[in-house]
């Protein structure tokens, strides 16, 4: 395959549309309607409990951090606060963006706006980019949320653990959005009716950051930025760690989530921060199932999926060598075996994508 062009207005995207890879019908495991209806049911209770816990812990850790500032004794509390701010906000943005976290729509919307601000994403733009991510998951030139492009840029990946590439991309973009609305690329997936909203959201974000910076200058201290803004850097590591595992080292340009997504068993703390998105094949196959029902969905369909990785460490041990191999051979990807109970991958659908992988795995 020729070198990949990840631009949303480039030739790979146009080719995906021509060949039918874009907006294609994806493989789904058969689940009885009655079971699926039960799994899709919404509830406010789990997300209210988790949200009170999340914001309560954030207030507690920030309060202790401020009280102990500038002593180094405050550091552990900032690190804990940072992970909740800079990583848990990613999963809250994600689940509330889908509208599945809470049953009550306004609760989804409120947490979505707060989380979008904390994770430095324009709430209006990213709702649409994520819709595209689900339509065209890891279709090159179509998916705006491909975290690891090929060949992998390892320096950028490592810097992402402290949020640097995201913040570097965010700052000029939020200013541009505030001045003139969505960029040319964003206009490929954000409907025109929403362009004004993109600009308004950006103006709110810029105003909050400007006020925080002004307060820091007035106080002669970075303390306000330790609370707002900087945690997106010093607390990003967990969402990057879990996020890279979602699709890293797996196939692109296929229409079977078993080939391009990864489910990883995780510890309870990571699952709280990540809101169960470790069940990522399940989430992509059935995005209407709320986070709290994903473990049950996993039990219902695991007979049709590749075996999950048993830990974050095992996931990285599988993914990292594959990424390194993609440095030399861009088309390489991990093709995981299916259990005997699973329906096979549809080779006819994926011949172009799968036919070029090397024999050795």
């Amino acid at each position, binding site marked *: 395959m020729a070198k990949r062009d990840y631009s949303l207005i480039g030739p790979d995207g146009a080719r995906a549309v021509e060949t039918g890879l874009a*907006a294609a*019908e994806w493989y*789904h495991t058969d689940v009885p*309607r009655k079971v*699926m*209806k039960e799994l*899709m*049911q*919404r509830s406010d209770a789990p997300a209210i409990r988790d949200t009170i816990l999340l914001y309560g812990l954030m207030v507690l850790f920030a309060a202790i951090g401020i009280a102990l500032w500038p002593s180094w004794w405050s550091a552990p509390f900032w690190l804990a606060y940072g992970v909740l701010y800079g990583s848990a906000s990613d999963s809250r943005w994600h689940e509330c963006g*889908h*509208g*599945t976290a809470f049953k009550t*729509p306004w609760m989804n919307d409120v947490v979505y706006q707060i989380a979008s601000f904390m994770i430095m994403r324009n709430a209006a733009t990213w*709702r*649409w980019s994520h*819709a595209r991510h*689900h*339509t065209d998951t890891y279709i090159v030139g179509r998916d705006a949320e491909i975290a690891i492009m090929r060949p992998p840029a390892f320096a950028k990946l490592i810097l992402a653990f402290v949020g640097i590439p995201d913040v570097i991309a965010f700052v000029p973009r939020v200013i541009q959005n505030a001045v003139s609305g969505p960029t040319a690329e964003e206009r490929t997936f954000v*409907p025109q*009716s*929403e362009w004004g909203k993109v600009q308004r959201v950006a103006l709110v974000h810029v105003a909050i950051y400007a006020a925080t910076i002004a307060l820091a200058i007035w106080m002669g201290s970075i303390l306000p930025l330790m609370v707002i803004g900087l945690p997106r850097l010093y607390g990003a590591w967990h969402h990057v760690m879990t996020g890279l595992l979602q699709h890293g080292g797996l196939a692109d340009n296929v229409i079977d989530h078993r080939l391009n997504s990864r489910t990883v068993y995780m510890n309870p703390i990571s699952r709280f921060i990540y809101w169960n998105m470790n069940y990522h094949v399940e989430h992509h196959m*059935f*995005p*209407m199932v709320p986070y709290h029902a994903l473990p049950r969905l996993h039990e219902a369909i695991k007979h049709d999926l590749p075996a999950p990785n048993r830990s974050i460490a095992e996931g990285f041990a599988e993914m990292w060598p594959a990424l390194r191999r993609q440095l030399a051979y861009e088309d390489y990807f991990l093709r995981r075996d299916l259990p005997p109970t699973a329906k096979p991958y549809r080779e006819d659908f994926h011949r172009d994508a799968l036919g070029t992988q090397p024999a050795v795995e």
Partner: protein
Amino acid sequence: MPTWIRACATDDIDEEDLIRFDHAGATYAIYHSPDGKFFATAGLCTHENVHLCDGLVMGHLIECPKHNGQFDYRTGEAKRAPVCVNLRTFPVKVDGDDVYIEVA
């Protein structure tokens, strides 16, 4: 000329649920509301070509299974992003145990 077509039996659809109905190359969604009434809309989401029959009925809303956009299936009104374009609706009548929809 509008024609009434039998779509299903009344007990083919649970309350607060829907089924898919294909006819003459077109696909429709037939709904059984929580208050016992029947409705019909186009079967594909207006955002992407996704069959609504795999979605979730919540009261009088149908949620698309792919992107979680929502419509009021009584009027077809788009209620939640990413859907922006309303869904086409079709007249429905119940005759005995059968549900009919009027197609053009």
